[in-house]
C-alpha cells in the first residue's frame, strides 16, 4: 500500500502562488527604484557600506566646493602679485634712469612723482580683497593690511604673520596664504621701503642713495617673485586635488552602484521569469482544483 499523501493540495499551491507573486514584487520594486537594496535587511553589509560611501561622496563634494573657492582666491592673489612685479620692475627702471648723471633735477623730481604714484598703486594692490576679505593680511583677513602715511610715504603693516592651512582632500593640507609682511616688508626685500627711499633720493637727487634704493627695489622684486612661487605651487596642489576628487567621485559612484544598484538586465529577466512562474502556477492550480473526483462517477 502506498503512503497516504495530504489530500489537501491547496496550501502548497497557495504557497507557490505567493512565492511567485513575491518574486514579481521584488523584481518590480528593484526595476522601479533601480536599486537592489531597498531596505537594510535586503543586504545589511551593503547598507552599512553605503553609509561610508554616501559620507565620502558628500565630503568630496564639499572639498571640491572649498577647493574651487580657494582656487579663485589663490588666482586672485597670484594675478595681484604679477601686477606687483610690473610695478616694481617699473620702479627699478625709473630708478636706473634717475641714477644717470645726465638726468636733470626737474626730470628726477618728475620721476619721484611717478614713484610716489607707484607706491600708492602698490599699497592698493597689497590691500587687494577677495570676496570682502584681504588677501595679504595673514589671518587678520578683515584688517586692511597696509596703510600709507601721505606725508612721509611710509607704509605700516597692520595684519599678522598667520598662515592658514586648508584640507584639499582627506588629510591633505595646503597652506593658503603668505602674510603681507613677508611679501612686501621682509628683511630679504622691502618693496614699500625701497619705493619710499627711491622717492626721497630722487627728490634730493642723491645718486648714491638712488643707486641704493634701486638695489632695494631689485631685492623686493626678487622677494615677491620668490614668494609668488608659493601661490603657483598651491594652485598646482589644488588642481591635483581636484582631479583626484573627481576621480574619487567616479569610483565612489561606481561602488555605490555595485553595492546597491539593481542589475537592470538581470532584474528584467527575473521579472519575466517570475511572471511566467506565476502564470504556470495559476494555470496548474486551476486545473488541479477542478479535477474530477470519484464522486463525479457515482450515479
Amino acid at each position: 500500500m502506498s503512503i497516504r499523501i495530504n489530500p489537501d493540495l491547496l496550501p502548497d499551491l497557495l504557497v507557490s502562488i505567493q512565492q511567485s507573486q513575491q518574486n514579481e514584487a521584488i523584481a518590480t520594486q528593484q526595476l522601479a527604484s533601480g536599486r537592489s537594496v531597498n531596505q537594510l535587511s535586503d543586504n545589511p553589509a551593503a547598507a552599512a557600506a553605503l553609509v561610508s560611501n554616501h559620507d565620502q561622496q558628500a565630503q568630496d563634494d564639499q572639498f571640491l566646493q572649498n577647493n574651487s573657492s580657494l582656487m579663485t582666491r589663490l588666482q586672485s592673489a597670484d594675478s595681484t602679485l604679477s601686477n606687483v612685479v610690473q610695478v616694481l620692475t617699473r620702479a627699478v627702471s625709473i630708478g636706473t634712469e634717475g641714477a644717470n648723471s645726465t638726468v636733470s633735477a626737474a626730470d628726477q623730481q618728475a620721476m619721484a612723482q611717478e614713484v610716489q604714484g607707484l607706491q600708492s598703486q602698490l599699497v592698493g594692490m597689497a590691500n587687494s580683497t577677495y570676496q570682502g576679505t584681504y588677501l595679504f593680511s595673514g589671518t587678520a583677513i578683515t584688517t586692511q593690511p597696509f596703510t600709507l602715511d601721505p606725508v612721509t610715504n611710509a607704509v605700516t603693516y597692520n595684519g599678522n604673520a598667520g598662515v592658514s592651512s586648508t584640507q584639499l582632500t582627506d588629510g591633505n593640507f595646503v597652506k593658503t596664504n603668505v602674510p603681507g609682511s613677508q611679501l612686501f616688508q621682509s628683511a630679504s626685500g622691502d618693496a614699500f621701503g625701497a619705493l619710499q627711499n627711491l622717492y626721497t633720493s630722487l627728490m634730493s637727487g642723491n645718486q648714491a642713495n638712488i643707486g641704493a634704493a634701486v638695489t632695494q627695489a631689485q631685492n623686493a622684486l626678487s622677494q615677491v617673485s620668490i614668494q609668488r612661487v608659493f601661490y603657483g605651487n598651491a594652485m598646482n596642489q589644488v588642481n591635483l586635488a581636484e582631479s583626484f576628487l573627481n576621480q574619487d567621485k567616479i569610483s565612489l559612484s561606481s561602488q555605490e552602484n555595485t553595492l546597491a544598484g539593481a542589475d537592470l538586465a538581470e532584474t528584467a529577466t527575473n521579472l519575466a521569469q517570475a511572471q511566467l512562474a506565476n502564470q504556470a502556477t495559476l494555470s496548474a492550480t486551476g486545473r488541479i482544483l477542478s479535477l474530477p473526483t470519484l464522486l463525479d462517477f457515482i450515479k
Partner: protein
Amino acid sequence: MGSLSGALNIALQSMLAEQGGIEVTSNNIANVNTPGYARQRANFAETDPVRFGNVTLGTGVELQGVSSLRDSILDLRDNQETQQQGQLNAFINGGQQIQALFNEASGTGLQAPLTAFFTSLSQLSASPGDVNVRQGVLTAAQNLANAFNQATNNLTTIQRSTDLSVSQSVGQINSLTTQIAAVNAQVQTATSLGQNAGAFIDQRQQLINKLSNLIDVSQIDAGDGSLTLTTNSGAPLVVGAQSFQLTTQPDSTTGLQHVFSQGTDITSQIASGELAGQLQIRDQEIPSIQSSLDALAYNLGNSVNLQNQAGYDLNGVKGGNLFNIPATAAGSASGIRVATTDPTKIAASGGPAPGSPGDNTNANTLLALQSQTIVNGQTPLNAYSNLVFKIGSDVSNAQSNQQAGSLALQQIQNLQGAVSGVDINEEAANLIRYQNAYQASAQVSSVINSLLQTTLNMVQ
C-alpha cells in the same frame, strides 16, 4: 442451528452498521474544509459467534465506535514550529519598523545629518571668518541634534506600540487558555465515558496551536485525556479544567508592562511565540539601538565641546560648549541640544588674537574629529555604520530563520494532512462500499422475508 430470524437480525444489524459508516463518511465530507478537523473512521467489528453443537455461526457486524485519525507527535511539532514562527514574525514586524527609521538605502537615516555636520566644519575651515558659514555650522549642528532626538522619539514610539501589543497578546493568551481548559474538561469527560473525544481534541489542538503562536507551550498528557499546559519555564497555563491567567503590571522605572504568572515576573523567561518576539523588540533590540545612539551622541557631542573649548571664537574669547548633553551617555540622543544660537561662538581660531578671523587652526581640529576614534574606539560614522549593519542583519537573520521555519511548518502540516486530511476520493469509495453493503443487506432481509412467507404458507 441457525434461524431465519437470526439471519434477518444479522441483515438488520448490518444495515444499521453501514448506515453508521455512511454517517461518518458524510461527516468527513462535510468537514473537508474545516480547519483542524481530523478525518474519522467507522470501526466495524464482527459480533461474538454462537455455537450450536459442532457448528459455530457468526452473528453479524457491529459499529464499535468512531475514531479520529491524528498523530499527536506531529501536532506537537506543529505547535513547536508555530511558536518559532510567531516569535520570528513578531520580531520581523518590529524590526521592519525600526529599520525604516535608519533606511540608508533611501537616505532617511543619521548619515546625512552626521556628514552634513562635518562638511559644514570643512566649509568653516575654508572660510573661518564668514558668518554665513558659521551659521551653516550651527544649522548643521541643529539638524544633527534634531536627527538624534527624532530617532529616539521614533524608537520610543515603536517601543510603546510594542508594549501595547504585549498587553494584547497576554489578553489573547488568557482567552485561549480559558477556552482550552473548557475543552480539556470535555475531553476528560468523553474519555472517562469511553466516547470518541475526537471532535473536542480537534478543537483543543486548534486552540493550542493558536496559543503556540503567542507563547511557548509545553504540554504533558495527564493520563485522563486532559493535557497540562505550562510555559517552557514551568509557569502553569492550563491544568485539567482550570486555566491560569497571566497578568501584566507596568515596571516602576520604565513603565513597560511586565508579565506575571501567579505573582512571579516571568517576562524574561518567555522563550517563543509572538509575545517573546514582541518582548525581544521592546526589551532588547530597541534598548540596544538606543544605547548605541546615546553613545554616538554623547561621545560626539563631548568631543566637539572639548575641541571647541580648546579654540577661540570670532571675538577672540575662549570657546564654550556647542552642544548641551546629559552628564552620562544614557539619554544623550534624546537630550542633545545645540548650546548656542550665536554663530560667532564657534571656536575656529587656534589663538586668542581677536583680529584674526582667518585663523582656522581649531576648525581643522574640529573637522579632524570625523576621522578620530571617539565613539567607543570607532569613528562617529563607523559607529553608525556598524549600527546600521546590526539593525539590518537582525531583521535579515530573522527573515531567513522565518523562511526556513515556514518551509518546515509546511512540511509538518503536509504530514498532518497525510494522516488526518479528508480525501474526497477515499470518502467516495467508502460511500460506494457502504452503499453496496447496505443494499446487499436489504436484499438479504427481503429474501429472508420471502423465505419466512414461504414457511408461513407451508403451515396453512
